[in-house]
C-alpha cells in the first residue's frame, strides 16, 4: 500500500513515520522545511524566544532570591534569534533522520494533485517529479490571515513570520489580535524593550478562555506596561516608509514602527490542485470537508490539521494524522475532541482543556467548580512563583469536564486533567491518587477537594 502525504508539519511528518512503521510505502512531499509552521515559524521558535525572555526575567529578579549580579542585564535580540535558529535547525535535521531511518521517501517541492492517484511535485530547480499513489493525505497546513485592509507588505505590516527573524527588537509595535499568538509575542517583545500595544476586537484578551483567566493575564500585562485596547478594531492602516499609523474603529489614532497582524490563520490550498479532483470545502472558512474518518469526498484522499474544521493546534494535527493513517490501513476510528488541551506560553502560562464556564453557561448546563490559588502552596512560595490558580469543572455527576490552569508550570501540569477529561474520571476517582509534595501539582489536588468544599489549604 502506498501513501503519499503532502506537507511535513506535525500532522504530516508524524503520520508518515507512523504509516511507515506500520508497513506502508510512504512518500512525504514538503515545499519548505520539515516540521512545518510549528517547528519553523510557530510553536518551537516562539518557545525558544520565550526561554530567553524568561532567563532575562529571572536575572532581573535575582536580587530577591539572594543572588547578586554585577553589571548590566539586557537582551541581545540577534543572539536570541541565533539561538532560536540553532534549536530549529537541529530539530529539522532530527526529523529528516527519523524519516530516513523509517524509509520514508522525502521529496522537496510543491505538490499539486493531478488526479486522485497522481501528484506532480515541482522542485526548487524547476523540474517536475510525478508520484503515483494509492492514498493521499493532505497536510498542507495554514498561513496567517492577512485581509487586504491591513496592507500586509512583510515590511512595516507584518505577521508572526517576520518577527522571528528580525535583527533587532522593534522600538514599537501595534499587535492586532489579543489571542494566543498576539499575547505571547506581545509579552516577549515587551520584555525585549519594545513599546507594545495590543488591539483586540472582543472585550478582553484571550476571549475564548474563561474570564478569570483573561483577568490574570490582563493584570500581568498591566505590570509589564503593555497597552491593551479591547472592544476595538482597526478601521484603517496607513503605512509609510518609517512607521505605520492606524485609525481605530473608535476614531483614535495610533502609530508604531510595525503593525503585526495576528488575527488568525487560514488553510493553505492555493495551487494545490484540489479542484482537479473536486475536493469539497466547508461553507465557512474554506476548510477541507471531511467525514468522521477524516476522509474527503474523494474516497482515497484524507485531510488533517489546519486544513480541516478543527482546532488549529499542532497536537490536533498529529492526533488526526495518526487517525487518518489508521483509517487508511484498516483500523477504523473517529477522533474525539472533548478533551483538546490548549496552551498559552505567556507569564504566567495558561493551559486549559475541555469545557469553559462560558460555554457551559451558554448551553445552560449545571456544573460545579473547584479552585485553588498557587500561593497557598509551599512549593509556590519557596520557588517564588505564586501567581495563578487551578480551576476544575465537574458536571452534576462529579465527572471532570473541563479545567484551566494559570501559572508558571501550567502547560506541563495540564496533562493529568486532560487525561481525566478524556477518560471521564470523577473527582472521587482522581482523589484516590497520592500527589507528590512539594509540587505545584498539589494545587490540582486542592482544587479537586474544593469541588466538595474540602480544600485544606484554602482560606
Amino acid at each position, binding site marked *: 500500500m502506498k501513501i503519499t502525504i503532502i506537507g511535513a508539519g506535525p500532522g504530516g511528518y508524524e503520520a508518515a513515520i507512523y504509516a511507515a512503521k506500520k508497513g506502508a510505502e510512504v512518500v512525504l512531499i514538503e515545499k519548505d522545511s520539515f516540521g512545518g509552521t510549528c517547528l519553523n515559524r510557530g510553536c518551537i521558535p516562539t518557545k525558544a524566544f520565550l526561554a530567553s525572555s524568561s532567563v532575562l526575567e529571572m536575572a532581573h529578579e535575582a536580587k530577591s532570591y539572594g543572588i547578586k549580579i554585577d553589571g548590566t542585564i539586557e537582551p541581545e535580540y540577534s543572539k536570541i534569534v541565533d539561538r532560536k535558529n540553532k534549536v530549529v535547525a537541529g530539530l529539522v535535521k532530527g526529523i529528516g533522520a527519523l524519516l530516513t531511518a523509517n524509509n520514508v521517501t522525502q521529496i522537496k517541492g510543491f505538490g499539486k494533485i493531478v488526479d486522485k492517484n497522481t501528484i506532480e511535485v515541482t522542485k526548487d530547480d524547476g523540474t517536475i517529479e510525478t508520484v503515483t499513489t494509492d492514498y493521499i493525505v493532505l497536510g498542507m497546513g495554514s498561513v496567517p490571515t492577512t485581509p487586504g485592509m491591513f496592507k500586509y507588505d512583510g515590511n512595516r505590516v507584518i505577521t508572526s513570520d517576520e518577527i522571528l527573524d528580525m535583527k533587532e527588537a522593534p522600538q514599537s509595535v501595534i499587535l492586532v489580535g489579543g489571542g494566543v499568538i498576539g499575547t505571547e509575542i506581545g509579552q516577549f517583545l515587551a520584555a525585549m524593550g519594545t513599546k507594545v500595544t495590543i488591539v483586540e476586537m472582543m472585550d478582553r484578551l484571550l476571549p475564548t478562555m474563561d474570564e478569570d483567566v483573561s483577568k490574570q493575564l490582563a493584570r500581568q500585562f498591566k505590570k509589564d506596561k503593555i497597552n491593551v485596547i479591547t472592544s476595538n478594531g482597526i478601521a484603517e492602516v496607513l503605512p509609510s516608509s518609517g512607521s505605520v499609523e492606524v485609525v481605530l474603529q473608535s476614531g483614535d489614532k495610533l502609530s508604531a514602527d510595525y503593525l503585526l497582524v495576528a488575527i488568525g490563520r487560514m488553510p493553505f490550498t492555493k495551487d494545490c490542485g484540489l479542484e482537479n479532483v473536486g475536493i469539497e470545502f466547508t461553507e465557512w472558512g474554506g476548510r477541507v470537508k471531511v467525514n468522521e474518518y477524516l476522509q474527503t469526498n474523494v474516497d482515497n484522499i484524507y485531510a488533517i490539521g489546519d486544513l480541516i474544521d478543527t482546532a488549529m493546534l499542532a497536537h490536533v494535527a498529529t492526533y488526526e494524522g495518526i487517525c487518518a493513517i489508521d483509517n487508511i490501513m484498516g483500523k477504523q476510528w473517529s477522533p474525539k475532541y472533548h478533551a483538546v488541551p490548549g496552551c498559552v506560553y505567556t507569564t504566567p502560562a495558561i493551559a486549559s482543556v475541555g469545557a469553559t464556564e462560558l460555554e457551559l453557561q451558554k448551553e445552560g448546563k449545571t456544573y460545579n467548580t473547584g479552585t485553588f*490559588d498557587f*500561593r497557598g502552596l509551599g512549593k509556590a512560595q519557596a520557588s517564588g512563583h*505564586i501567581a495563578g490558580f487551578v480551576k476544575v469543572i465537574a458536571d452534576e455527576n462529579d465527572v471532570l469536564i473541563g479545567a484551566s490552569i494559570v501559572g508558571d508550570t501550567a502547560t506541563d501540569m495540564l496533562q493529568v486533567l486532560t487525561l481525566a477529561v478524556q477518560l471521564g474520571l470523577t473527582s472521587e476517582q482522581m482523589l484516590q491518587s497520592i500527589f507528590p509534595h512539594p509540587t505545584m501539582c498539589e494545587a490540582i489536588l486542592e482544587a479537586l477537594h474544593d469541588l466538595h468544599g474540602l480544600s485544606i489549604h484554602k482560606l
Partner: protein
Amino acid sequence: MSYPSDLRYTKDHIWFKENGETFLIGVTDYAQDQLGEVLYVDLPAAGTVDAEGTIFEIESSKSATVMQIPFAVEVVAANEELDDDPENINNAPYDTWIAEVKADEADVAGLLSAADYEATL
C-alpha cells in the same frame, strides 16, 4: 495597630477620609497585616460602583482579596502610584489612598468610628 479617629471605617476594613467635596479611601492597618506583602492593586476605573460591589482587588503574597463597598460610590480617581509601589499600603496604610470617590454624606456618617471598628476585630 492604629485606627485614626478622624476616619470612618467599613466593617470590611476600608477607611474613608474627607477630602473637600470627595472622600479618599484605603485599607486599614489590620487589613494590610492580614493581607501580607501587597504585590498589586487592581485599581477601579472611573464610574459608579453599586452597593456591595467590588471597589478594588488586592493581590498579596498570601491571597488575592476582593474588597467590597457597602454603599454606592462614584469613583473619580485612582492612585496610580500603587502600580509601581504597591507596598506603600503595607508601610503607610492610612497615608496611602487607593481611590477618590464621591459618596453620600449620610452613608459615610453611618460608618463605624475608630473605636467601633476596633471593637469588631
